[in-house]
């Protein structure tokens, strides 16, 4: 298969996923007990204005598919509707909180790469005690949920030692980073452990390969062999894991932002759910899905670039 065809196929598949996801998000309204109108109005007083606003926003007077496509067209035009709680356009609610979430994800990604790859490579090349320490550390990290880790970090480093602020996002770039340090660690740790495990296993298996052993026995410097042969080949599975991890982080922010009371998209989502502010829920869920799917696409493309041996026909979506 040629490159353009491969890309077109992938992008089409992505669009299908997004279409289905949006249908699910919109259609789930109709599964609500009591029907969409009573769900959207919820425990608020059903004033004529509110009913009119909700009916117009969700096009509740049209047949289902018409409603759905009208709503979808609105969304594609950037009109995500209005929040019933904040009495404000959803897009501006999201815009003002996007930066915090983005910074948190980027910060966590950097930590995952540094710690995950660092410990993974170290454990694989050193073996022995170092390997066992890293393995144990990884096992412990993998079984600690982000919110538990966040709580423990608060107890030890913020309340106990007082090194970090307990909650909140801070203001100004430096202060923001300072406030985001514990949340980023909470978000990153288990993913870093997973990356460490995969990269270590991948390097170990490359080290055992014939051409590497041959190169070593011919007296080539170990460093050179490791760099030229081992790390390059071992990077293929690692890229997949990094990609999936970043995609997973986006969902992970929902929990971590709530532990540390950060004013990002994740805490907005949870509040919107509790307040039955469905326009906000829809918008953030769609956004999370788009990011998740896009990252997966990028990983697929990178993957096929790094390893030309892989065919472009793979049927994994």
């Amino acid at each position: 298969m040629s490159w353009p065809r491969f890309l077109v196929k992938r992008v089409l598949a992505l669009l299908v996923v997004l279409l289905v996801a949006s249908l699910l998000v919109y259609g789930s309204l109709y599964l609500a007990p009591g029907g969409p109108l009573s769900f959207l109005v919820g425990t608020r007083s059903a004033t004529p204005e509110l009913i009119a606003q909700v009916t117009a926003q969700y096009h509740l007077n049209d047949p289902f598919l018409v409603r759905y496509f009208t709503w979808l067209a609105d969304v594609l035009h950037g009109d995500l509707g209005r929040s019933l709680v904040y009495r404000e356009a959803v897009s501006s609610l999201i815009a003002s909180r996007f930066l915090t979430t983005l910074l948190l994800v980027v910060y966590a990604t950097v930590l995952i790469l540094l710690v995950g790859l660092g410990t993974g490579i170290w454990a694989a090349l050193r073996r022995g005690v170092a390997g066992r320490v890293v393995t144990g550390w990884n096992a412990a990290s993998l079984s600690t949920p982000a919110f538990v880790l966040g709580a423990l970090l608060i107890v030890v480093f913020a309340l106990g030692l007082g090194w970090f602020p307990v909650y909140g996002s801070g203001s100004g770039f430096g202060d923001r980073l300072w406030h985001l340090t514990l949340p980023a660690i909470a978000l990153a740790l288990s993913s870093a452990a997973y990356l460490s495990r995969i990269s270590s296993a991948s390097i170990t298996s490359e080290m055992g390969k014939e051409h590497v052993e041959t190169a070593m026995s011919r007296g080539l410097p170990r460093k050179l062999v490791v760099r030229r042969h081992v790390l390059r080949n071992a990077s293929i599975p690692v890229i997949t894991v990094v990609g999936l991890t970043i995609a997973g982080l986006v969902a992970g922010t929902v929990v971590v932002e709530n532990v540390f009371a950060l004013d990002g998209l994740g805490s907005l989502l949870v509040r919107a759910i509790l307040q039955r502010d469905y326009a906000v829920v829809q918008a953030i869920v769609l956004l999370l899905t788009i990011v998740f799917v896009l990252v997966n696409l990028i990983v697929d493309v990178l993957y096929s670039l790094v390893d030309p041996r892989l065919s472009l026909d793979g049927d994994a979506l």
Partner: protein
Amino acid sequence: MSGVATSMDQSSSDRPPRRAPWWRRVGIAPLCAIVILAVMILAAVFAPLVAPYNPNSPDLLAALQGPSAAHPLGTDALGRDTLSRLIYGGRTTLLGPIVVILLSTVLGLLLGVAAAWRGGSIDTVISRIVDVLFSIPGIVFALVTVAILGAGLGSVVIGLTIAYTPYAARVIRGGALRERRMPYISAAWIQGRSGSTIARRHLVPNIRPLILAQAVAALGFAVIDLASMSFLGLGVQPPTPDWGLMVKSGLDSAVRGQPTEVIVASVAIALFVGAVTVLGDRLSTGVNK
């Protein structure tokens, strides 16, 4: 999941020699994991017999205490015994994930076997649906379900079941596809048995270890997801004791100077997930051997 080509009888030949003691064959870490899980589950099941106090009865004179002889794990902000809440909390914390795994495994089995067995357009349709479900983060399903049905353990269980079914379906489909090519299946065909009988009598029993390994591995994630939802206030509702909620209320107690509750609940969750992970790894290496 490459190389999951073994059926029960074939893998028996790969087992270590009979002389090795049984605990060596299982491994030290998996053994510890089984003991931990057994203790936690038994304690939760027999909570009324084991727990030293009523988990919901406050003792305002004993609020926010550290460990003592009367309260081995201290008390919470209302003076309720943390050990008793931990024991009772195991019920909601563990029951929810177990239900999720049972439901999603049954659904995954139906979808996976149907796809592998029937093949053709049925396989394509099922596989495409699974692919799409895969591309939406699991916790998002739980969040949307809670948004629609309201906060509560039931909503979260429904949402997570939808999220976990595609995983089970994909793994089981892979296993069933490989199994289908095995000679004994063709033999059964030749003997004139019906397709559904072969699937039920031969195929499913042979991929049972695979199903079990998958279910145990997923259980760890389900515990994390459910506890996270309770922590967020979307799952189990206070004052029902629950580990995720204990982390939440324990954080407030820690701000007030008593970190015992949050540490105890955190350790319990990590220990359970860790034990499940170890057991899951052991089971899947058994399958992959």
